[in-house]
């Protein structure tokens, strides 16, 4: 069975640019969450989507946005990139928002120069 897949695996962007990260959840899973993990820290919650609706938002600026598509895949968009946005971006999928077992993808390593 395919797990959570994220693309791309690595990305280098310049300050001020925009980036789109993609996530495909496990087949049958309807909830997708996004996390940011800075080196040496635990993951920080950014967004959760379920059935294409935003169900939760962490303490991140409006430069961060996301959406979920009818096939339950998701995109995370970050505008006006800052050096501090350099991190591992993780996508987690679960069957529903009430499902306490979340499965993470391998992440997208974003470097902003």
């Amino acid at each position, binding site marked *: 069975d395919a797990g959570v897949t994220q693309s791309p695996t690595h990305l280098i962007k310049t300050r001020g640019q925009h980036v789109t990260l993609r996530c495909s959840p496990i087949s049958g899973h309807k909830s997708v*969450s996004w996390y940011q993990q800075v080196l040496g820290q*635990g993951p*920080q919650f950014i967004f*959760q989507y379920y059935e294409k609706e935003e169900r*939760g938002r962490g303490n991140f600026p409006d430069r961060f946005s996301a959406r979920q598509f009818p096939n339950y895949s998701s995109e995370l968009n970050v505008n006006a990139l800052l050096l501090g946005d350099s991190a591992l971006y993780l996508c*987690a999928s679960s069957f529903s928002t009430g499902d306490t077992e*979340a499965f*993470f993808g391998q992440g997208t390593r974003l470097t902003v120069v």
Partner: protein
Amino acid sequence: EDQVTQSPEALRLQEGESSSLNCSYTVSGLRGLFWYRQDPGKGPEFLFTLYSAGEEKEKERLKATLTKKESFLHITAPKPEDSATYLCAVQAWVSGYALNFGKGTSLLVTP
């Protein structure tokens, strides 16, 4: 505000030397406490969910326990392949389904 503190930050063990990792938490209404394992450059791998004080779960050489203020991850007779960062996270009823992670404990098991 929910807080998760993991200790120690780093732990070095000899193969076969058992030990415990600690996760202290403060949360308004615990929905669940989670343990994940993370290898370098990879996403976290789910290990356990604990829901109420007194609960215990085991998987191979790992055993997780929960009290009202902390959780322990006991590692019995570890092997080098157990080397990883172990993350603890809490989920609160009031904050939806977001996981609030600690910084993790980096475990190195030497032969």
